[in-house]
């Protein structure tokens, strides 16, 4: 089976049309998403949308959204949304959750948003153990600006400001964000997932579901770092991009649960 055939089947879920070629769009949004063909963010957003719906949280979710390709697409999520400044979504979410403890409060951020501009906010929300959940879409670059180095860019990875590949001597070394956050006592659930195969998509959904349930059980800060492919920024075909995610990106930013409470002890 080729990777082309392994792509998850297009199913219509509320909010997120699952990519190109979907004949029907949800009537309340009635919009096609504006992501590039082969973009992994639509997969992660679909997983998120499915989990929120299945967990019955559609009516009690507020999502603080960061700045990146996903910002406009986040509009297709059928939940209340507060657009945040670049990097500051966890702080916005803190203000919402602290005053409304019964809501499900979520942040949707990219790797640049969360680990570069927003490193301080992201780190300290986790350190304080804020009862919020972050979904970090990690494609290893600032892709909305046309592909530039972020803290998660691999050494040797090509971007427009690391032509010839990221040079550690000039750009420094990548940050393993999930592992960094997992080291904090304030973090309760931390996982990293990918979508290069249907198995990984299912695993991503499992991690997102656990993170969501963790917050609803009163647990401390939760993070799911979803690796998302970016054929446009990586200058690869959609299929090659999935392969690169599997063989290169996920080899450094490794998949799995980095921190999870024992079953039944989510708080």
């Amino acid at each position, binding site marked *: 089976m080729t990777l082309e055939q392994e792509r998850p089947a297009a199913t219509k879920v509320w909010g997120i049309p699952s990519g190109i070629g979907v004949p029907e769009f949800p009537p309340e949004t009635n919009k096609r998403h504006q992501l590039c063909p082969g973009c992994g963010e639509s997969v992660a957003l679909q997983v998120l949308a499915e989990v929120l719906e299945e967990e019955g949280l559609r009516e009690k979710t507020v999502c603080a959204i960061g700045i990146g390709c996903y910002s406009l697409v986040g509009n297709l999520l059928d939940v209340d949304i507060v657009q945040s400044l670049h990097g500051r979504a966890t702080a916005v979410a803190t203000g919402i959750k602290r*005053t409304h403890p019964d809501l499900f409060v979520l942040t949707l951020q990219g790797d640049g948003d969360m680990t570069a501009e927003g490193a*301080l*906010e992201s780190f300290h929300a986790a350190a304080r153990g804020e009862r919020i959940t972050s979904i970090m879409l990690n494609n290893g670059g600032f892709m909305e600006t046309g592909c530039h180095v972020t803290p998660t860019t691999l050494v040797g990875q090509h971007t427009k400001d690391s032509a010839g590949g990221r040079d550690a001597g000039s750009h420094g070394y990548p940050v393993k964000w999930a592992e960094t956050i997992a080291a904090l006592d304030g973090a309760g659930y931390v996982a990293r997932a990918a979508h290069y195969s249907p198995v990984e998509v299912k695993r991503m959904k499992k991690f997102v579901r656990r993170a969501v349930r963790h917050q609803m059980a009163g647990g401390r800060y939760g993070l799911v770092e979803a690796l998302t492919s970016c054929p446009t920024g990586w200058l690869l075909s959609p299929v090659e991009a999935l392969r690169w995610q599997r063989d290169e990106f996920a080899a450094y930013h490794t998949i799995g649960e980095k921190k999870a409470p024992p079953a039944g002890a989510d708080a």
Partner: protein
Amino acid sequence: VGERKFLQCSHAVAEAAVRAGCRFYSSYPITPSSEILEYMSRRMPEVNGACVSSASETESASMVWGAGASGERALFASTSTGFSLVQEALAEMANSEIPCVMLNMSRGAVQGDYYQATRGGGHGDYRLPVLAPSTVQEAVDHTGLAFDLADRYRTPVIVLSDVVLYMTMESVELPGFVDLDAIRASKDWAAVGSGGGPRTRISFFGLSGHSDDLEDSLVRSVNKAVDIRRDEVRYEDFLVDDAEFVVVAFGMAARLAKAAIRVLRAEGTKVGLLRPITLYPFPADRIAELATNARKVITFEMNFGQMIDDVRSAVFGRCSVEWFGGLGPGSADTGFGTFWSQADVQQILRRHTADQPVADYVGGVRS
């Protein structure tokens, strides 16, 4: 419902905020605003609110953003340097229409943040209502007023004061507690989960990706600015009816000027004070009116000359405009640098009204 107490201004303002329905506070320690943080860390849990000591002012500002977007009355306080850090958030909170109150108790040149407060401070085309109290009682009253204006216009509101006022203790009458349920119920736009109703989008650009949204929001901002400029100008007249000399000063400077004006009046000088209470919108029309019958408009401010620009454009050649200010001649040292005494103001004002040459240097600045 009022309650009279003898309080330091920061504590009085913090308590006034709680009574005005503030249920979220976040800030980063900086003298002198730390006292509000200390008070709120104890007080907020008592009223089922939240106080978060943040890792930076930028973080605090976005926390206030979140609390405001979800319909709560939220407060941030800082001091000059820290207040510079929240300009990014203020600019986009204005565009996102987030109600909140931001206190700046400035230090250094104690009125040196006039431009920052009244010109927007951050990027983009926005202005925020700015209140400038001159007594502890007024600082208390402005707290409730600021929250009301913030909710009425869905905008951040700045209260600009200084270290001297916030460390002053005076007898104040605290207001009663507002009906918080009614305030919350009135915010049908708040992001609190759709609960089966329409979804809420709170954003500084049209999230749909259509340029119409952006245009709508810009048009709304302009309309709002027009309303605020028309309806929210506040000022105090003091002995201006027959004044040949009109002093324009705000905050603590106005307080010193008022005392000096009383002395000069007793000497027979026809001098009065116009005190802008809102620095934005600025009482330009009133100043123009007074300038029509005055010989001079004299601006006094504790900085190197900022409000003078607004005064000049208000007077617009109707009479002559003079200025004095700066850090202060140094006869009153507050521990936060030199400051003005009432005697200094009186002496310099006497020269201005007698058409005498004013001392070359006032507080290190050629006047």
